[in-house]
């Protein structure tokens, strides 16, 4: 009886600690940021005043914000689709039990384990003007002169998309592998007996039963890319001409380069709301799909 009480007390202590950490490091900063979004807070000015909704109304006419949101949304949806398609494909390929496949699974997950900064530095050496890719393409005669993979707006968007997809595919592969392994083998056996094979079996059995994995994978991929900062900062710094400036990067520049902490907080609130709306909409749509299947 006494042991049970002390066990409960220990659990309560852990829960309390987690709650306090959550409140102090997540809820409190969020509330402080919300408060700041209604001010003209500038860390380098003596006075910071309450300015009502001025920051929010300013956002309507902010071309840089609009461009950063457009870029972020295109990247988020593009990467989410590509990483999930590739994730399903790799998961099916790697859904074996032998040692070599287990090793390949680890390799597939590796990009997800690496720090975004390291990933970006590695890809920079590949994609830069005199990088490995241009050197290789010129050596085999595909290109006559180096192609600006990071030096023109469209190519830079594409290049960032490829890098982020590479990173996210490690994650989606693992999620889909787990989902694949939760499908009862009997279902496949029964399908085989009924003569259902190949793409038909994938369409009728595998794909519908991957639905819970799809919900998780799509939602987390979207949220991750919506708040992407590190890879873009290292790879292009938001350039050329701010064409690859994600909203998260714009927020940091507003706060620490332009000293507009108040406005940066308002943009951060917008990004939070946008992420919440997108994530909730996608999640509820995918959940409805899970139920209907």
């Amino acid at each position, binding site marked *: 009886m006494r042991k049970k009480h002390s066990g409960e007390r220990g659990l309560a202590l852990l829960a309390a600690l987690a709650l306090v950490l959550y409140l102090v490091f997540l809820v409190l900063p969020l509330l402080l940021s919300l408060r700041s979004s209604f001010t003209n807070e500038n860390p380098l000015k003596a006075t910071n005043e309450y300015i009502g909704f001025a920051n929010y109304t300013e956002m309507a006419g902010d071309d840089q914000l609009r461009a950063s949101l457009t870029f972020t949304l295109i990247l988020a949806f593009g990467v989410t689709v590509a990483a999930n398609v590739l994730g399903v494909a790799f998961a099916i390929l790697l859904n074996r039990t032998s040692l070599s496949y287990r090793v390949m699974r680890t390799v597939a997950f590796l990009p997800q384990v690496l720090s975004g900064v390291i990933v970006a530095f590695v890809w920079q050496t590949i994609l830069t*003007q005199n990088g490995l890719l241009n050197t290789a393409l010129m050596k085999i005669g595909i290109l006559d002169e180096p192609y600006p993979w990071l030096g023109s707006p469209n190519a830079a968007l594409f290049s960032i998309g490829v890098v982020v997809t590479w990173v996210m595919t490690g994650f989606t592969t693992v999620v889909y592998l787990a989902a694949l392994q939760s499908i009862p083998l009997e279902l496949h056996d029964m399908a085989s007996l009924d003569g259902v094979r190949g793409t038909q079996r994938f369409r009728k059995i595998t794909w519908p039963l991957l639905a819970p994995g799809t919900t998780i994978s799509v939602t987390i991929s979207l949220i991750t890319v919506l708040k992407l900062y590190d890879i873009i900062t290292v790879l292009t710094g938001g350039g050329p*001409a701010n064409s690859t400036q994600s909203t998260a990067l714009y927020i940091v520049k507003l706060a620490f380069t332009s000293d507009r902490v108040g406005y940066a907080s308002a943009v951060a609130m917008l990004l939070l709301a946008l992420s919440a709306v997108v994530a909730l909409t996608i999640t509820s749509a995918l959940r409805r799909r899970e139920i209907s299947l």
Partner: protein
Amino acid sequence: MIRKPLLAACVAGLLAFTAACGSGEGGGNESGETALTYLVFETPSLDAKFWDDSIAAATAQTPGVKINKIVAPSTDRDGYAKQLQQSGQFPDLLQSITPSNFVGAGLLKPYDKTWIDANFLLPSANSLKGEVYIPPTNSQIVPQVYYNKKLFTDAGISAAPKTWAEFLDACAKLKAKGINPIELGGADPFAASMPLVGIISADILGKNKNWLQNRYADKVKFADQDVVAAVSKYRTLVTSGYFDKGALGVKYADSITRFTTGKSAMYPMGSWFLGSVPKDTADNFGSFPWPTDSGDVVVPFVGGGSMAISAKAKDTAKAEKFGQAWSLNTKNLKALIETDGAFPMIKGKTLEDYGVTVTQVFKDSYAYVGQDNNKVNAIGWATNDDALPPGLNDAFYAAAQALFTKDDVAGEMRKLDDAWKTAVQ
């Protein structure tokens, strides 16, 4: 259910832990020394040893001071100083920051003017409303145009161009010979902006030194016809194919290598490039000021310097003494001259006094500092009253990159005016 005392204990413990972690007060130590924090930044040439040695030398001349070095995570000292200020850890001494970013909030203490006047060639090079927050120990020209003499000869160019027409002619001759005329490290925004800094400094500030002050007073704008006409020269260079087509994908570090290995004939860059000129082929490189229509020499000048002092330093008098000792130490400047191409500005000293080994192209470039010529504050680089408002450099860099692919010069200049309006609000 959790008991209130338990929860209270958790909160109290966490707060105590947080307070202990964040405690930066208590400037003294047991030996009675005043501990001062000093924000520095490391580069390949200004490495940890350079800072440690320079700190040790200045500390030896400042009894009772102990320096705790803080290394900025990148060369963006201003950005890191702002983050430290936000978290209540603003350093006592800050190396090579932009004072105008911090003076408005009363964060910096000015140096003693008498000491500044007594020791430096251009005492007001860094002054903000008459006060000097960073001793003007050295200077830079941003940009100068560096050129490869052999490639010029190969293209039949007999002398460095002085006028804009001669410059365009040189570019055309180089291109006709299959030589890339101008190198641009366009992937790094600051490097991408170099031609624009040269053009505006030469064509606009060269004709009106007060242009930036007039911009602050809203008497002139970037979208004015004269600025648009000047910036259109940059478009001329781009559309004529005088830069590599993929220049916006070239990193700054790679642009140095490309130029010094003969991939391009000219390189508009800050005079810190002089520290990267290969010693064995140094005689093959020359420099000339960014050309003007008339051929008049305009020198886009930047007063560099050492460290600023926090107005809230634990002991501002000792902090100032340390700053003075560091600033006048010729050994520190020796490293800056040799590796960073800094032009020394201490009164009564010649290059020989620093014991430096410099190239001829360094001497030729440095000569512009001593000459009686039209020196203007290089736009985007000045740290004095002509410094751009916070955040505008980014907009300026973005315009430089955008104009590499867009023809709408007037539109980009209007964007700069909009950014200016927001920045000064």
